[in-house]
């Protein structure tokens, strides 16, 4: 790859990339794309890829075999997209190795196998195959960040540029001042996607106002919650989009220092982002004097080793600095004193990925999406026994009921919805009868629920509220960094009380002790994680109080999950 020296060189490269991209789809050949991402690898996508490669060469089929990222439809993995000459691309789900030869044979016979198709990438139906966008899982989605996920090769900067990538960065770099960039971000009312929902533009502006140098811009791709996997899918499917957002952030702060902190356990996300950074350096979109503009930017990737706390801002910065990731008291806020005690702007992966579209289309366009206070789109993941499990991107304002029953298809047969755990481990659940609430940052708060990072868990009658609450609090206990006492000692105390109740040794006053201890933990903990650790428990207690009381007074667990049901003696385990 040749390093591009100026904007004209980039335009030429982009034109060539686009021409190549269009040729790929118009030439007289088969184009077969296999979704390779964390979830599909788990379901055998690599074998499907190898098998396809073998059968294509054995059958002498002139074909281009590509890898793409994740389309979000985990339920249909591994998926294969086939573009035959004269046909639009058709996406096939559940393409395990045993189905590969059968599919290829059928296609050669001219049989498009509509029964295996998820949909066709076209505006209308094609030989009995409905458009992909009409699939129930995709119909209610609004895809900005995932628009090209599952279409472009995440390890190819050329693919990304062919579909219009890095245009927003160039627009900012050559046509806008850093102040104008920040003004657009402010106008978009984009709010932090990591959970807290702080307005991004205001954060950038305060970072810009702080005079000390150097400044740092950091992507938080740690993602350690037990029910969220959206950031790593984004990095696996379109890493350049995140990198472009980071570059625009660095430009707005006029700093050459960008970081991405990626959880060490997300190996593929890490590898693909690394590759993206290397390619951007090779092409001259990173490094010194980018495209002759005089602006320089360097991106470093740092990883952690499995500590949930490192997702907290100040802890994450200590982790980058090679210290134990433990939070500190605030103020000073990190925009004043963050990484290496310099002004640092830290945003979630998804926040950065939203930036290019804002710069490209304008802040007011973005603000027109979603609701008034929660603008734009949100990546959400739903876990539990739902029909269409996966990552979805929705406009804010969709109701929780629509999200569960329309987008994720409701619960699978034989399951009855009991509730939805919201906000990762940082908020309470919603009962089945409370689901008509719109998904935005404000509407969920009065109910003790939260959008958080967009990780929702649907649970059914087979889940015991007491046991689930224990699971969620036990997570916080295990992941407590141990720095401050309320969290270090408070969360084990809550788990101990819950264990007592689960084992049939609960006392009526235990419920008061839970309230009392939780209040202490919430008010006295040092960082956000401690302050919200008791929330899931308090939420469960409020929503399913009768179940707690049943455990205590009747020594009965209606779900049959708790050890009381089995008559097991009290033992303290994890």
């Amino acid at each position, binding site marked *: 790859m040749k390093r591009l020296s100026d904007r004209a060189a980039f335009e030429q490269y982009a034109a060539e990339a686009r021409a190549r991209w269009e040729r790929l789809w118009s030439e007289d050949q088969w184009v077969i794309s296999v979704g390779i991402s964390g979830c599909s690898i788990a379901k055998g996508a690599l074998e499907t890829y190898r098998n396809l490669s073998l059968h294509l060469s054995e059958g002498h089929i002139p074909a281009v075999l590509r890898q793409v990222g994740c389309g979000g439809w985990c339920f249909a993995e591994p998926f294969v997209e086939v573009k035959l000459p004269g046909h639009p691309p058709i996406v096939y789900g559940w393409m395990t190795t045993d189905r590969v030869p059968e599919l290829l044979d059928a296609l050669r016979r001219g049989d498009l196998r509509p029964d295996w198709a998820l949909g066709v990438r076209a505006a209308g139906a094609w030989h009995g195959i409905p458009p992909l966008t009409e699939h129930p899982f995709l119909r209610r989605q609004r895809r900005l960040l995932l628009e090209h996920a599952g279409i472009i090769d995440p390890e190819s900067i050329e693919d990304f540029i062919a579909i219009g990538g890095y245009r927003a960065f160039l627009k900012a770099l050559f046509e806008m001042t850093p102040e104008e960039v920040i003004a657009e971000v402010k106008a978009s009312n984009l709010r932090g996607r990591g959970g807290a929902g702080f307005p991004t533009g205001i954060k950038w502006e305060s970072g810009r106002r702080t005079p000390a140098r150097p400044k740092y811009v950091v992507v938080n791709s740690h993602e350690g919650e037990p029910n969220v996997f959206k950031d790593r899918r984004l990095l696996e499917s379109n890493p350049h989009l995140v990198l472009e957002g980071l570059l625009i952030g660095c430009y707005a702060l006029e700093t050459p220092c960008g970081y991405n902190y990626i*959880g060490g356990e*997300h190996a593929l996300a890490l590898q693909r982002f690394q590759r993206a950074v290397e390619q951007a350096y090779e092409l001259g979109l990173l490094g010194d004097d980018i495209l002759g503009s005089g602006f320089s930017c360097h991106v470093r990737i740092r*990883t952690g*080793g499995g500590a949930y706390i490192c997702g907290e801002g100040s802890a994450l910065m200590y982790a980058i600095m090679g210290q134990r990731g433990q939070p500190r008291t605030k103020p000073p806020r990190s925009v004043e004193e963050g990484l290496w005690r310099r002004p640092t702007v830290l945003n979630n992966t998804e926040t950065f990925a939203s930036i290019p579209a804002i710069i490209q289309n304008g802040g007011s366009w973005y603000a027109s999406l979603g609701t008034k206070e929660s603008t734009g789109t949100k990546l959400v993941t739903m876990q539990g026994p739902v029909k269409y499990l996966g990552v979805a991107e929705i406009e804010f304002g969709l109701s929780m009921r629509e999200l569960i029953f329309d987008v994720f298809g409701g619960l699978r047969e034989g399951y009855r919805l009991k509730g939805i755990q919201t906000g990762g481990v940082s908020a309470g659940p919603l009962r089945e009868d409370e689901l008509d609430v719109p998904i935005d940052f404000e509407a969920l708060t009065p109910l003790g629920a939260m959008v958080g990072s967009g990780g929702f868990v649907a649970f059914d009658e087979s889940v015991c509220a007491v*046991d689930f609450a224990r699971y969620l609090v036990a997570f916080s206990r295990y992941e407590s960094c141990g720095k401050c006492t309320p969290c270090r000692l408070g969360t084990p105390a809550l788990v101990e009380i819950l264990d007592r109740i689960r084992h049939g040794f609960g006392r009526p006053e235990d419920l008061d002790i839970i309230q009392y201890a939780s209040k202490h933990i919430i008010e006295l903990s040092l960082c956000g994680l401690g302050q919200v650790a008791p929330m899931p428990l308090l939420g469960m207690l409020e929503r399913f109080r009768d179940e707690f009381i049943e455990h205590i007074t009747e020594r009965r667990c209606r779900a049959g999950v708790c050890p009381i049901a089995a008559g097991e003696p009290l033992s303290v385990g*994890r």
Partner: protein
Amino acid sequence: MEERETARREIDLQPLRRILEERYRPRDHQEAQELVVGACQEAQHLYGWVPPQAAQLIAEHLGVTINRVYGLLTFYADFRTEPPGEHFLWLCHGAACYIAGSQKVVDALRTEYRLGEDGTTSDGLLTVHVFDGCLGACDLAPVAQLDHHEYIGQLDANRLRELVEELRACRRVGSNDETIE
């Protein structure tokens, strides 16, 4: 057990030294500190754990104290300072897996296989790491990852037992092969 003792003694530091010299060349002390965790990950990738010799080498190479290195090794859940068993099982205990019953699998492991402090079975066959985050393969819940590549989905206590038996059987076959050679 003997294998683990051997693993403890015989550590070839050469590959780690090469990686450090190639890719871990900090420009200043600030960057050196940023690289400690990454260097430890390289060591764990090479050896399956971070042996004391490797920790010492990393400390010397990056010019930080050995205390700093161990401070990090003991803070992060992913690092091992003891050699793992022959096989490594990453058991996902995320919310999706919990809903699907991973707690029973975790309990079965603890009671039936008497895991030690470091999660290794007493015969050194298997090291289990219960992963509190999410492996991101929720469609397969409860799910585990064996030896960093093979996924086992819809896991329950029975399937786990079968898996351990399979691993044991392979081990027996493996050692027979050696005697034939």
